[in-house]
Protein backbone atom coordinates (compact mmCIF):
# COMPACT_ATOMS: atom_id res chain seq x y z
CA UNK A 1 0.00 0.00 0.00
CA UNK A 2 2.68 2.49 0.98
CA UNK A 3 4.68 1.75 -2.21
CA UNK A 4 1.55 2.42 -4.26
CA UNK A 5 0.98 5.81 -2.65
CA UNK A 6 4.62 6.75 -2.85
CA UNK A 7 4.61 5.93 -6.56
CA UNK A 8 1.47 8.01 -7.07
CA UNK A 9 2.92 11.07 -5.39
CA UNK A 10 6.21 10.71 -7.27
CA UNK A 11 4.67 10.40 -10.70
CA UNK A 12 1.81 12.82 -11.28
CA UNK A 13 0.65 13.00 -14.88
CA UNK A 14 -1.32 16.16 -15.48
CA UNK A 15 -4.03 16.76 -18.05
CA UNK A 16 -4.61 20.41 -18.84
CA UNK A 17 -8.27 21.23 -19.39
CA UNK A 18 -8.74 24.71 -20.83
CA UNK A 19 -12.35 25.58 -20.00
CA UNK A 20 -12.63 28.92 -21.84
CA UNK A 21 -9.64 30.64 -20.24
CA UNK A 22 -8.06 33.89 -21.41
CA UNK A 23 -4.85 31.90 -22.04
CA UNK A 24 -2.91 33.68 -19.32
CA UNK A 25 -2.93 30.74 -16.89
CA UNK A 26 -2.10 28.36 -19.74
CA UNK A 27 1.04 30.31 -20.61
CA UNK A 28 2.07 30.19 -16.96
CA UNK A 29 1.48 26.40 -16.85
CA UNK A 30 3.90 25.97 -19.75
CA UNK A 31 6.45 27.96 -17.75
CA UNK A 32 6.55 25.04 -15.33
CA UNK A 33 8.10 22.84 -18.02
CA UNK A 34 10.89 25.28 -18.86
CA UNK A 35 14.45 24.99 -17.46
CA UNK A 36 13.82 27.53 -14.68
CA UNK A 37 11.15 25.43 -12.94
CA UNK A 38 11.36 22.00 -14.63
CA UNK A 39 8.69 20.03 -12.77
CA UNK A 40 9.85 16.81 -14.44
CA UNK A 41 12.31 16.77 -11.50
CA UNK A 42 9.32 15.66 -9.39
CA UNK A 43 8.01 13.26 -12.03
CA UNK A 44 5.23 15.62 -13.09
CA UNK A 45 4.42 15.38 -16.79
CA UNK A 46 1.82 16.92 -19.07
CA UNK A 47 -0.14 14.22 -20.94
CA UNK A 48 -2.41 14.54 -23.96
CA UNK A 49 -5.13 12.08 -22.96
CA UNK A 50 -7.47 12.30 -19.96
CA UNK A 51 -7.21 8.50 -19.57
CA UNK A 52 -3.54 8.86 -18.56
CA UNK A 53 -4.15 11.66 -16.09
CA UNK A 54 -3.67 11.62 -12.31
CA UNK A 55 -4.58 15.29 -11.97
CA UNK A 56 -6.66 17.65 -14.07
CA UNK A 57 -5.80 21.33 -14.16
CA UNK A 58 -8.91 23.35 -14.99
CA UNK A 59 -8.37 26.92 -16.12
CA UNK A 60 -10.94 29.52 -17.17
CA UNK A 61 -14.38 30.77 -16.27
CA UNK A 62 -16.72 27.83 -16.63
CA UNK A 63 -19.73 29.03 -18.61
CA UNK A 64 -22.86 27.18 -19.69
CA UNK A 65 -21.43 25.82 -22.95
CA UNK A 66 -18.19 24.49 -21.52
CA UNK A 67 -19.85 23.02 -18.42
CA UNK A 68 -21.26 19.85 -19.96
CA UNK A 69 -18.04 19.24 -21.91
CA UNK A 70 -16.06 19.60 -18.70
CA UNK A 71 -18.31 17.08 -16.95
CA UNK A 72 -17.89 14.65 -19.86
CA UNK A 73 -14.10 14.93 -19.80
CA UNK A 74 -13.89 14.51 -16.01
CA UNK A 75 -16.13 11.43 -16.17
CA UNK A 76 -13.65 9.76 -18.55
CA UNK A 77 -10.71 9.97 -16.15
CA UNK A 78 -9.29 6.79 -14.61
CA UNK A 79 -9.52 6.89 -10.81
CA UNK A 80 -7.81 8.08 -8.63
CA UNK A 81 -7.79 11.45 -10.37
CA UNK A 82 -7.60 14.83 -8.66
CA UNK A 83 -9.10 18.11 -9.84
CA UNK A 84 -7.19 21.34 -9.39
CA UNK A 85 -8.85 24.73 -9.94
CA UNK A 86 -6.20 27.01 -11.39
CA UNK A 87 -6.55 30.77 -11.47
CA UNK A 88 -9.14 33.17 -10.05
CA UNK A 89 -11.69 32.35 -12.78
CA UNK A 90 -12.16 28.68 -11.95
CA UNK A 91 -11.76 29.33 -8.21
CA UNK A 92 -14.31 32.13 -7.90
CA UNK A 93 -15.37 33.39 -11.37
CA UNK A 94 -13.27 36.56 -10.95
CA UNK A 95 -15.01 39.45 -12.74
CA UNK A 96 -17.10 37.18 -14.96
CA UNK A 97 -19.50 36.31 -12.12
CA UNK A 98 -22.13 38.75 -13.31
CA UNK A 99 -21.58 38.01 -16.98
CA UNK A 100 -24.45 37.04 -19.34
CA UNK A 101 -23.05 33.56 -20.08
CA UNK A 102 -24.01 31.99 -16.74
CA UNK A 103 -20.63 31.35 -15.12
CA UNK A 104 -20.14 29.10 -12.15
CA UNK A 105 -17.07 28.35 -10.02
CA UNK A 106 -15.58 24.90 -10.52
CA UNK A 107 -16.51 23.57 -7.08
CA UNK A 108 -20.22 23.91 -7.87
CA UNK A 109 -19.75 21.50 -10.77
CA UNK A 110 -17.36 18.89 -9.38
CA UNK A 111 -15.27 18.08 -6.32
CA UNK A 112 -12.15 20.23 -6.24
CA UNK A 113 -9.06 18.95 -4.41
CA UNK A 114 -6.87 22.04 -4.62
CA UNK A 115 -7.35 25.73 -5.33
CA UNK A 116 -4.57 27.84 -6.80
CA UNK A 117 -5.56 31.51 -6.88
CA UNK A 118 -3.97 34.27 -8.92
CA UNK A 119 -4.56 36.04 -12.20
CA UNK A 120 -2.50 34.28 -13.42
CA UNK A 121 -0.91 32.37 -10.50
CA UNK A 122 2.88 32.35 -10.45
CA UNK A 123 4.63 29.07 -11.29
CA UNK A 124 5.90 28.97 -7.69
CA UNK A 125 2.29 29.19 -6.48
CA UNK A 126 1.33 26.26 -8.74
CA UNK A 127 4.17 24.11 -7.39
CA UNK A 128 3.13 25.01 -3.86
CA UNK A 129 -0.46 24.08 -4.70
CA UNK A 130 0.56 20.65 -5.96
CA UNK A 131 2.76 20.10 -2.88
CA UNK A 132 -0.16 21.07 -0.64
CA UNK A 133 -2.42 18.63 -2.52
CA UNK A 134 0.08 15.78 -2.07
CA UNK A 135 0.53 16.54 1.64
CA UNK A 136 -3.24 16.77 2.21
CA UNK A 137 -3.80 13.41 0.49
CA UNK A 138 -0.98 11.76 2.44
CA UNK A 139 -2.35 13.16 5.70
CA UNK A 140 -5.85 11.93 4.84
CA UNK A 141 -4.49 8.43 4.15
CA UNK A 142 -2.60 8.28 7.45
CA UNK A 143 -5.77 8.90 9.48
Amino acid at each position, binding site marked *: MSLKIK*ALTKSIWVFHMAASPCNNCDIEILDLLTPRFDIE*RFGIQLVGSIRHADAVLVTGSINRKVRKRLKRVLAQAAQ*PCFVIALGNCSCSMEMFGTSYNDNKPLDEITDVHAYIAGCPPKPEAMIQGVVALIQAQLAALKK
Partner: protein
Amino acid sequence: MSLLQGIGFLIGGFVVAAVIGMFAHWFDRKITARVQWRVGPPFFQPLYDFVKLLAKEVVVPEGGSRFLFLAAPLFGLASVTVVSALMLRTVIFPGETFVGDLIVVIYLLTIPSQAVILGAFASANPLASLGGSREMKLILSYELPFLLVILVPVIKAGATIKMGSIIEYQATSGAAIGSLSGVIAFVIGLLCMQAKLAKVPFDAPEAETEIMAGAYIEYSGAALGLFKLTQWMMMFAVPFFLMMLFIGAVNWQQSWLNVVFAVLIYIGILLFITLVRNTNPRLRIDQIMKFFWAKMTPLAILAVILAFLGL
Protein backbone atom coordinates in the same frame (compact mmCIF):
# COMPACT_ATOMS: atom_id res chain seq x y z
CA MET B 1 16.88 -28.21 -22.31
CA SER B 2 14.53 -29.10 -19.53
CA LEU B 3 11.23 -27.33 -18.88
CA LEU B 4 12.55 -25.85 -15.64
CA GLN B 5 15.56 -24.37 -17.41
CA GLY B 6 13.26 -22.85 -20.03
CA ILE B 7 11.08 -21.21 -17.41
CA GLY B 8 14.22 -19.93 -15.69
CA PHE B 9 15.43 -18.33 -18.92
CA LEU B 10 12.00 -16.75 -19.52
CA ILE B 11 11.95 -15.18 -16.04
CA GLY B 12 15.60 -14.16 -16.37
CA GLY B 13 14.98 -12.62 -19.78
CA PHE B 14 12.00 -10.69 -18.47
CA VAL B 15 13.85 -9.33 -15.44
CA VAL B 16 16.99 -8.39 -17.38
CA ALA B 17 15.00 -6.70 -20.16
CA ALA B 18 12.71 -4.88 -17.73
CA VAL B 19 15.56 -3.57 -15.54
CA ILE B 20 17.77 -2.52 -18.47
CA GLY B 21 14.73 -1.15 -20.32
CA MET B 22 13.75 1.01 -17.34
CA PHE B 23 17.32 2.27 -17.13
CA ALA B 24 17.21 3.02 -20.88
CA HIS B 25 13.98 4.97 -20.48
CA TRP B 26 15.41 6.98 -17.58
CA PHE B 27 18.61 7.62 -19.58
CA ASP B 28 16.55 8.80 -22.54
CA ARG B 29 14.52 11.24 -20.42
CA LYS B 30 17.55 12.48 -18.47
CA ILE B 31 19.61 13.16 -21.60
CA THR B 32 16.60 14.87 -23.20
CA ALA B 33 16.31 17.08 -20.11
CA ARG B 34 20.04 17.90 -20.19
CA VAL B 35 19.81 18.77 -23.91
CA GLN B 36 16.99 21.18 -23.02
CA TRP B 37 19.08 22.58 -20.13
CA ARG B 38 16.77 21.07 -17.49
CA VAL B 39 17.53 18.80 -14.54
CA GLY B 40 15.37 15.85 -15.52
CA PRO B 41 13.61 13.05 -13.62
CA PRO B 42 15.11 11.05 -10.72
CA PHE B 43 16.71 7.64 -11.34
CA PHE B 44 13.73 5.57 -10.17
CA GLN B 45 11.19 7.56 -12.19
CA PRO B 46 10.29 4.69 -14.60
CA LEU B 47 9.67 2.42 -11.60
CA TYR B 48 7.40 5.01 -9.96
CA ASP B 49 5.51 5.48 -13.22
CA PHE B 50 5.06 1.73 -13.69
CA VAL B 51 3.93 1.01 -10.13
CA LYS B 52 1.55 3.95 -10.23
CA LEU B 53 0.02 2.76 -13.50
CA LEU B 54 -0.43 -0.77 -12.12
CA ALA B 55 -2.41 0.63 -9.19
CA LYS B 56 -4.74 2.78 -11.28
CA GLU B 57 -8.17 1.96 -12.65
CA VAL B 58 -8.39 0.38 -16.12
CA VAL B 59 -11.12 2.01 -18.19
CA VAL B 60 -12.41 -0.03 -21.14
CA PRO B 61 -14.03 2.25 -23.71
CA GLU B 62 -17.66 1.65 -24.62
CA GLY B 63 -18.04 0.25 -28.14
CA GLY B 64 -14.55 -1.21 -28.24
CA SER B 65 -13.61 -4.88 -28.25
CA ARG B 66 -13.10 -5.69 -24.59
CA PHE B 67 -11.06 -8.88 -25.02
CA LEU B 68 -8.73 -7.51 -27.70
CA PHE B 69 -8.32 -4.21 -25.86
CA LEU B 70 -7.08 -5.96 -22.72
CA ALA B 71 -5.16 -8.78 -24.49
CA ALA B 72 -3.13 -6.58 -26.85
CA PRO B 73 -0.65 -5.31 -24.20
CA LEU B 74 -0.08 -8.91 -23.09
CA PHE B 75 0.78 -10.06 -26.64
CA GLY B 76 3.44 -7.36 -26.90
CA LEU B 77 4.90 -8.04 -23.46
CA ALA B 78 4.96 -11.83 -24.01
CA SER B 79 6.78 -11.61 -27.34
CA VAL B 80 9.43 -9.17 -26.12
CA THR B 81 9.98 -11.41 -23.09
CA VAL B 82 10.55 -14.45 -25.34
CA VAL B 83 12.92 -12.44 -27.54
CA SER B 84 14.96 -11.35 -24.51
CA ALA B 85 15.09 -14.91 -23.17
CA LEU B 86 16.21 -16.30 -26.55
CA MET B 87 18.93 -13.69 -26.92
CA LEU B 88 20.14 -14.16 -23.37
CA ARG B 89 20.39 -17.91 -23.90
CA THR B 90 22.23 -17.41 -27.20
CA VAL B 91 24.79 -15.17 -25.52
CA ILE B 92 25.34 -17.54 -22.60
CA PHE B 93 25.36 -20.80 -24.61
CA PRO B 94 26.14 -19.86 -28.26
CA GLY B 95 26.65 -23.49 -29.22
CA GLU B 96 23.25 -24.74 -28.10
CA THR B 97 20.82 -22.69 -30.21
CA PHE B 98 18.52 -24.16 -32.83
CA VAL B 99 18.58 -23.51 -36.59
CA GLY B 100 16.32 -20.62 -37.59
CA ASP B 101 16.18 -18.82 -34.24
CA LEU B 102 17.20 -15.64 -36.09
CA ILE B 103 13.92 -15.80 -38.03
CA VAL B 104 11.95 -16.46 -34.85
CA VAL B 105 13.48 -13.36 -33.25
CA ILE B 106 12.74 -11.22 -36.34
CA TYR B 107 9.10 -12.33 -36.24
CA LEU B 108 8.75 -11.82 -32.50
CA LEU B 109 10.26 -8.33 -32.70
CA THR B 110 7.40 -7.15 -34.95
CA ILE B 111 4.69 -8.47 -32.63
CA PRO B 112 4.86 -5.53 -30.15
CA SER B 113 4.11 -3.18 -33.05
CA GLN B 114 1.23 -5.40 -34.14
CA ALA B 115 -0.07 -5.45 -30.57
CA VAL B 116 -0.14 -1.65 -30.68
CA ILE B 117 -2.16 -1.81 -33.92
CA LEU B 118 -4.63 -4.35 -32.46
CA GLY B 119 -5.04 -2.37 -29.25
CA ALA B 120 -5.54 0.86 -31.17
CA PHE B 121 -8.24 -0.59 -33.41
CA ALA B 122 -9.94 -2.26 -30.44
CA SER B 123 -10.32 1.02 -28.55
CA ALA B 124 -12.99 2.59 -30.81
CA ASN B 125 -11.37 6.00 -30.91
CA PRO B 126 -10.71 7.91 -34.15
CA LEU B 127 -7.33 9.19 -33.00
CA ALA B 128 -6.29 5.70 -31.91
CA SER B 129 -7.32 4.32 -35.31
CA LEU B 130 -5.23 6.99 -36.96
CA GLY B 131 -2.27 6.01 -34.78
CA GLY B 132 -2.85 2.33 -35.55
CA SER B 133 -2.94 2.87 -39.29
CA ARG B 134 0.21 4.97 -39.10
CA GLU B 135 1.95 2.24 -37.11
CA MET B 136 0.99 -0.22 -39.85
CA LYS B 137 2.52 2.00 -42.53
CA LEU B 138 5.59 2.47 -40.36
CA ILE B 139 6.09 -1.31 -40.15
CA LEU B 140 5.74 -1.57 -43.95
CA SER B 141 8.35 1.17 -44.34
CA TYR B 142 11.15 -0.07 -42.10
CA GLU B 143 10.75 -3.83 -42.31
CA LEU B 144 12.21 -4.20 -45.83
CA PRO B 145 15.54 -2.40 -45.18
CA PHE B 146 15.72 -4.02 -41.73
CA LEU B 147 15.54 -7.54 -43.23
CA LEU B 148 18.15 -6.63 -45.87
CA VAL B 149 20.42 -5.29 -43.14
CA ILE B 150 20.14 -8.56 -41.21
CA LEU B 151 21.21 -10.43 -44.37
CA VAL B 152 24.68 -8.84 -44.20
CA PRO B 153 25.98 -10.61 -41.03
CA VAL B 154 24.15 -13.76 -42.18
CA ILE B 155 26.14 -13.76 -45.45
CA LYS B 156 29.37 -12.93 -43.64
CA ALA B 157 28.94 -15.86 -41.25
CA GLY B 158 28.54 -18.23 -44.21
CA ALA B 159 24.77 -18.16 -44.88
CA THR B 160 23.68 -19.40 -41.47
CA ILE B 161 20.37 -18.46 -39.83
CA LYS B 162 21.52 -19.61 -36.41
CA MET B 163 22.27 -16.73 -34.02
CA GLY B 164 24.73 -18.84 -32.07
CA SER B 165 26.91 -19.53 -35.13
CA ILE B 166 26.80 -15.83 -36.14
CA ILE B 167 28.17 -14.96 -32.70
CA GLU B 168 30.75 -17.75 -32.79
CA TYR B 169 31.89 -16.72 -36.27
CA GLN B 170 32.41 -13.14 -35.09
CA ALA B 171 34.30 -14.30 -32.00
CA THR B 172 36.84 -16.12 -34.18
CA SER B 173 37.13 -13.94 -37.32
CA GLY B 174 36.21 -10.38 -36.33
CA ALA B 175 32.97 -8.43 -35.96
CA ALA B 176 30.71 -7.91 -38.96
CA ILE B 177 30.94 -4.16 -38.44
CA GLY B 178 34.66 -4.28 -39.29
CA SER B 179 33.98 -4.16 -43.04
CA LEU B 180 32.50 -1.65 -45.48
CA SER B 181 29.23 -3.56 -45.97
CA GLY B 182 29.00 -4.03 -42.20
CA VAL B 183 29.34 -0.30 -41.51
CA ILE B 184 26.67 0.62 -44.09
CA ALA B 185 24.31 -2.06 -42.81
CA PHE B 186 24.83 -1.08 -39.15
CA VAL B 187 24.02 2.59 -39.82
CA ILE B 188 20.84 1.64 -41.71
CA GLY B 189 20.04 -0.80 -38.90
CA LEU B 190 20.30 2.03 -36.33
CA LEU B 191 17.82 4.13 -38.33
CA CYS B 192 15.43 1.17 -38.67
CA MET B 193 15.74 0.68 -34.91
CA GLN B 194 14.73 4.31 -34.38
CA ALA B 195 11.57 3.57 -36.38
CA LYS B 196 10.98 0.24 -34.63
CA LEU B 197 11.05 2.01 -31.27
CA ALA B 198 8.73 4.73 -32.72
CA LYS B 199 11.02 7.54 -31.58
CA VAL B 200 11.20 10.98 -33.18
CA PRO B 201 11.58 11.53 -36.21
CA PHE B 202 9.57 8.34 -36.79
CA ASP B 203 7.02 8.79 -34.00
CA ALA B 204 4.03 9.42 -36.29
CA PRO B 205 1.92 6.69 -34.56
CA GLU B 206 2.24 8.39 -31.18
CA ALA B 207 2.67 12.02 -32.17
CA GLU B 208 1.96 13.48 -28.74
CA THR B 209 1.43 17.03 -29.94
CA GLU B 210 -0.69 16.04 -32.90
CA ILE B 211 -2.93 13.05 -32.13
CA MET B 212 -2.26 13.07 -28.36
CA ALA B 213 -0.86 9.65 -27.52
CA GLY B 214 -2.23 8.17 -30.77
CA ALA B 215 -2.59 4.44 -30.39
CA TYR B 216 -2.42 4.64 -26.57
CA ILE B 217 -5.03 7.37 -26.16
CA GLU B 218 -7.76 5.15 -24.63
CA TYR B 219 -5.42 3.07 -22.47
CA SER B 220 -5.25 3.66 -18.75
CA GLY B 221 -3.95 1.97 -15.62
CA ALA B 222 -2.27 -1.42 -15.80
CA ALA B 223 -2.94 -1.90 -19.53
CA LEU B 224 -1.08 1.33 -20.29
CA GLY B 225 1.63 0.28 -17.83
CA LEU B 226 2.19 -2.99 -19.71
CA PHE B 227 2.40 -1.12 -23.02
CA LYS B 228 4.95 1.27 -21.52
CA LEU B 229 6.95 -1.63 -20.10
CA THR B 230 6.93 -3.30 -23.53
CA GLN B 231 8.25 -0.09 -25.08
CA TRP B 232 11.03 0.11 -22.49
CA MET B 233 11.95 -3.55 -22.94
CA MET B 234 12.15 -2.98 -26.69
CA MET B 235 14.79 -0.35 -25.91
CA PHE B 236 16.83 -3.27 -24.60
CA ALA B 237 15.86 -5.93 -27.13
CA VAL B 238 16.34 -4.14 -30.46
CA PRO B 239 19.74 -2.50 -29.74
CA PHE B 240 20.96 -5.78 -28.22
CA PHE B 241 19.79 -7.69 -31.31
CA LEU B 242 21.80 -5.32 -33.55
CA MET B 243 24.81 -5.62 -31.23
CA MET B 244 24.59 -9.39 -31.45
CA LEU B 245 24.51 -9.42 -35.25
CA PHE B 246 27.16 -6.78 -35.89
CA ILE B 247 29.48 -6.74 -32.90
CA GLY B 248 28.98 -10.27 -31.64
CA ALA B 249 27.33 -8.98 -28.45
CA VAL B 250 29.19 -9.94 -25.30
CA ASN B 251 32.23 -12.15 -25.79
CA TRP B 252 32.34 -12.95 -22.10
CA GLN B 253 34.08 -16.30 -22.66
CA GLN B 254 37.26 -14.58 -23.86
CA SER B 255 37.66 -11.84 -21.29
CA TRP B 256 35.53 -10.00 -18.73
CA LEU B 257 36.68 -6.73 -20.23
CA ASN B 258 34.40 -7.46 -23.20
CA VAL B 259 31.37 -7.10 -20.93
CA VAL B 260 32.44 -3.54 -20.13
CA PHE B 261 32.88 -2.86 -23.85
CA ALA B 262 29.41 -4.22 -24.57
CA VAL B 263 27.85 -1.99 -21.90
CA LEU B 264 29.67 1.05 -23.30
CA ILE B 265 28.51 0.24 -26.84
CA TYR B 266 24.92 -0.20 -25.61
CA ILE B 267 25.02 3.18 -23.84
CA GLY B 268 26.48 4.71 -27.00
CA ILE B 269 23.57 3.35 -29.04
CA LEU B 270 21.10 4.74 -26.47
CA LEU B 271 22.83 8.12 -26.67
CA PHE B 272 22.52 8.01 -30.46
CA ILE B 273 18.77 7.28 -30.24
CA THR B 274 18.24 10.10 -27.76
CA LEU B 275 20.28 12.71 -29.62
CA VAL B 276 18.59 11.88 -32.95
CA ARG B 277 15.24 12.16 -31.20
CA ASN B 278 16.12 15.55 -29.73
CA THR B 279 17.51 17.17 -32.86
CA ASN B 280 14.95 16.16 -35.48
CA PRO B 281 11.36 17.15 -36.25
CA ARG B 282 8.67 14.52 -36.78
CA LEU B 283 8.35 13.29 -40.37
CA ARG B 284 5.01 12.77 -42.10
CA ILE B 285 4.17 9.15 -42.90
CA ASP B 286 4.76 9.68 -46.65
CA GLN B 287 8.17 11.19 -45.90
CA ILE B 288 9.01 8.18 -43.72
CA MET B 289 8.03 5.79 -46.52
CA LYS B 290 10.09 7.73 -49.07
CA PHE B 291 13.05 7.79 -46.70
CA PHE B 292 13.05 4.05 -46.10
CA TRP B 293 12.01 2.78 -49.53
CA ALA B 294 13.76 5.24 -51.83
CA LYS B 295 16.93 5.91 -49.83
CA MET B 296 17.58 3.18 -47.25
CA THR B 297 16.50 0.12 -49.27
CA PRO B 298 18.89 0.74 -52.24
CA LEU B 299 21.70 1.39 -49.76
CA ALA B 300 20.87 -1.82 -47.92
CA ILE B 301 20.85 -3.75 -51.23
CA LEU B 302 24.28 -2.24 -51.97
CA ALA B 303 25.48 -3.47 -48.56
CA VAL B 304 24.19 -6.98 -49.31
CA ILE B 305 25.97 -7.00 -52.71
CA LEU B 306 29.19 -5.79 -51.06
CA ALA B 307 28.85 -8.55 -48.47
CA PHE B 308 28.50 -11.12 -51.27
CA LEU B 309 31.70 -9.75 -52.83
CA GLY B 310 33.41 -10.20 -49.46
CA LEU B 311 33.96 -6.50 -48.72
